[in-house]
């Protein structure tokens, strides 16, 4: 599937902001079952400093500093992404979960060391609640890891209610577990914390989900939202995505921006401002399936401050990103 994704964020400040620093995880990473045909970033007012690099997890990260006094800041990303169905093993054919847990510390391959970091508590997954007990209901002795994880995913889907008023970005896992309510980010953190509590590496994935308008209606521009799910480490297979909010194995309708230990590592926009008074933030996300497009076909009316591939790059180069 090919998508055109746009993600607009608008800050309105009550008073002038003299300087603002932002760290963005808005440009989707490529690789695996995802090809990034084009991705670009637009910012107004034009930032004085704009650095793009790759973070420790391999995600694209952009740092902005806006040094002119501003009362409004608009950050927009536009991408053309192609997603192919991932190769997912049969759940019952995956190794027993204890094997995953026990084999991890001895695995000294680069992949193993990378996976190990997702085994430990991170700031957004700290919990005192009995998560090992919660996980154990799905993780019976000897049960294949993906089979057990799917069971856990289903239980979170059934036992927890989607409620965007129940939590905020800083609601701890314990409160979500107790209140049994939250949004995708909360469910992802909860399942990650539960998996890690029994020794299974799990990482947080930030991205988008294709949504459908109610039957008979036209999909509204900007009606989508960013989405979050998780991924577990299955030795021999690699990372397998799970979506507890929708109780499914993500396939071609999930578009990945990046991943990390939790939301804190990959929040789409993290900013610090000086001045500004009271402020308001608006976000509009649009995910639209499209026919095959190439970068050259994208017509832009404004100048991107960052884009991949660069304008005029050859087809071959485009294929490499």
């Amino acid at each position, binding site marked *: 599937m090919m998508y055109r994704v746009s993600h607009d964020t608008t800050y309105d400040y009550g008073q002038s902001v003299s300087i603002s620093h932002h760290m963005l995880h808005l440009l989707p990473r490529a690789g695996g079952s995802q090809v990034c045909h084009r991705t670009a970033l637009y910012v107004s007012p034009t930032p*004085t400093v704009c650095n793009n690099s790759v973070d420790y997890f391999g995600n694209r990260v952009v740092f902005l500093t806006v040094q002119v006094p501003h009362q409004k800041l608009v950050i927009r990303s536009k991408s053309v992404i192609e997603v192919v169905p991932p190769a997912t093993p049969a759940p019952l054919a995956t190794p027993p979960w204890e094997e995953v847990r026990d084999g991890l510390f001895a695995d000294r391959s680069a992949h193993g060391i990378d996976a190990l970091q997702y085994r430990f508590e991170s700031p957004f997954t700290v919990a005192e609640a009995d998560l090992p007990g919660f996980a154990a209901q799905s993780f019976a002795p000897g049960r294949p890891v993906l089979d057990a994880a799917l069971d856990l995913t289903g239980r979170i889907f059934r036992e927890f209610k989607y409620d*965007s008023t129940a939590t905020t970005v800083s609601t701890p896992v314990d409160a979500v577990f107790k209140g049994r309510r939250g949004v995708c980010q909360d469910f992802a953190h909860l399942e990650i914390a539960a998996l890690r509590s029994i020794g299974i590496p799990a990482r947080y994935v930030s991205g988008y989900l294709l949504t459908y308008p109610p039957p008979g209606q036209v999909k509204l521009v900007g009606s989508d939202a960013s989405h979050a799910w998780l991924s577990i480490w299955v030795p021999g297979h690699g990372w397998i995505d799970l979506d507890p909010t929708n109780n499914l194995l993500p396939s071609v309708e999930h578009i990945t921006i990046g991943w990390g230990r939790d939301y804190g590592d990959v929040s789409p926009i993290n900013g610090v401002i000086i001045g500004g008074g009271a402020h308001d933030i608006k976000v509009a996300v649009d995910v639209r399936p499209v026919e095959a497009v190439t970068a050259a076909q994208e017509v832009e009316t404004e100048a991107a401050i960052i884009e991949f591939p660069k304008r005029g790059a050859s087809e071959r180069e485009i294929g490499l990103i």
Partner: protein
Amino acid sequence: MSSPPRTTTAKSAKRAGPLTKGYQLKANVYDELLGPDRTMRAHWRKLMESLDRMDPGEFGHRWQRAETMLQENGINFNVFADTEQRVRPWSLDPVPFVISQQEWRALEDGLLQRVRLLNHVLKDIYGRQSLLLDGSIPSTLVVGNPHFLRACHGIAVPQGVYLNFMAIDLARAPDGRWWVLSDRTQAPAGAGFALENRIVVSGTLPEIYRESQVLRLAPFFQALHRHLISVAGRDDPHIVLLTPGPSRDTYFEHSYLARYLGFSLVEGADLTVRDDKVYLKTLGGLQQVDVILRHLADDDCDPLELRADSWLGVTGLVQAVRAGNVVMANALGSSIVQCEAFLALMPALSRQILGEELKLPNVATWWCGEETARDYAFEHFDELFLRPTFHRRTQRKVDFEPAVGMDLAAERKAQIRERMAAQGYDYTVQELIQASTVPTFHEGVLQPGPLVLRVFVAASGDDFVVMPGGLARIMHSPDTRAAAMKRGGESKDTWVLSPAPVAQVTLIGTSSGPVQLRRTGRDLPSRTADNLYWLGRYAERTEGTLRTLRALIKRLSADLANTATMPVVRRLLAIMVEYGQVSSPAVEEAVAGKLDSLEKSLAKILYDPRCPNGLHDVLRNFQSTAGLVRDRLSVDAWVTLNRLHQDRALQQPGSTTLEVGAALNALNGQILTLSAFAGMEMENMTRTYGWQFLDMGRRMERAQHMVEVLKTMLLSGAADQPGVLELLLELADSFMTYRSRYLAAPQLAPVLDLLLADETNPRSVGFQVAAIERHIENLPRDPDRAGLTKKQRMIRELRTRLQVCDIEHLATPDKNGKLAALTELFKRLEDELPALSERIAYVYFTHAEVARPAHVFRAGSSSP
């Protein structure tokens, strides 16, 4: 805290025999002073003989002086967070810890090897990670370590030096060998105290110090200084020392070191990042910073990329470091190797990386992430020292304070064992060492105390150097469990003896090449300007309070039934009501002739530390504001402040009666000490922007106070009542001036002229306003701006108003007998002075605006 040997201060008391008489050796413990057969170790002889020769009385006297010096210099180490005990003196034992140069050389050799090794490990962790890939370092200790800063991975570090300045704690085991207890690679405390200890001890025992040929500490700090300049990569770099601020227990040390090394002491809020460069926000504008000597935990350094909930750092700092525009010392992320589990790896890492055996052994350590280590821990659970492997910021139920297995309650023990079985990697266990003992002075005799030695290492050239000396600490427990710095206690100077005479060195004039002459001092941080302004205000507020109290108490001794005194007392009380020091009912009672409750109130104001707006309160504000700019005050100024604050004449909590004579004495003493502070401010401070703000604060407060006093005295009743004008002159310390000018009884118009308009009288409102105007003219302003600024207009209006006012007219009552014109003038001044003060704050101090998080939008939701 060590008590000065008061028992021996009697001049006649000759010590019966040598100091070591009665010095009890502990079984199975190495003693630094005496061998097992009680023969004194050779390197101690010279010191002990000299001490033995010294008259105990003389020694006691000297030591008492040293302790006063420590107290007054404000050496403190705030172990307790509560306000009553906030400033706890760091005690110093008079007898230095002595070590021979021969032994020191061996120790130094081992320390240098260790720091090279740690630096190499850091380079690998934040670079290729080959030590993880080959299994030399269990990956858990890196990727599972909360101190592993992912944002800093891959950042190039100048000259490959991660560790610019670190400390290592050592203890000597019964077999006489030194063992490493821990590596402090974050931002170790103690070097400033070691330096201060040296200055005090060498000043107390100057002859012995000279004769003993003690290696100097200054060359070590010179080396650090040179190194920091060299990593900056340009001539005359701007180096700052970053502190978390005065609320931290090590702040004194930060300001002490900053001053000693000649670096600006800054907090995160003083810095800003623009164009990927770090700048210090000063009155003169932004000044680029090249090197940051960091005394702030690394994860606190940048809310954007590191800990998002910490606001002690500088937003964008990591970017600036990544861009190579600023050097952090130590490098961000260095704290990862101070995790005790690394001790278990050091011997093997040394062989692998350096191809050498570890010269200085670690205390035996087992990281329970390894199965064999965990088995050992289970087997020897009771005798081992248990620690959480990682120092997490958020405490949870499963967390625990480091403890020895046998000291744990059975239930706790079972809980930890169970968790250890499931998550061994969270636990590290260590052997305890029976630390060597060193002589400490107690009640006039020497007693053995368990010793932990903190030594310091700095980068220098392409290698490292060790400070010849260190902070020797006496612990509360005989073994090494109490080695954590926070436990407080006693410290000692450490003397490394040289076989040859040592050269004198000081840090001043260490710079290579000619120094560019400077006079401006434009680099005053805006926040410091703000604090200095308030210091000036509080100094003046203290004086106003003291003078009012003195005037009042003086009159209480007079016959109050005397109708001539009462109206004056009443007006004085009105001022105190205005400042919230006495209540109106107490005033009514006093006026009615019932003085009990007034006396009680006054006693409270003078003596009760908890009395709101009382003298202690005012002094506390003064003192704590001074603490915020301690690095800007001279030692003498600070000593003067401490005298005010610690004045024994005012330390009578619970006192409810007022003894007039004693109270007046105390107040007179305070007023004199305070004028000593003001004198130092006038005579000893260079006329930098800092001084201008201090003086401007003082002028502003005095102007406002004088307006208040004039208004209350002249308008709350007939101005010509006997005694009122005299009192005004007394409060304004202008009696002599008046007398010499008029040689007549005070009259309203000349008094008004002297206290309101006369710009030559340092107590008049006019003088203050003129001074403020001069300051405003001299402070930096936007050179491109034409015309007057708003604050310039405000101050000129004020000054003109006072200059043109018709004193005769102001002093003449209208047909209703009211001083209407004067009333109107005071009203305007009461509005305009605070407005001007606000404007000054707005223009100069809002630079100190703080950073805060922008709202975030979470995934999967249409609301933040």
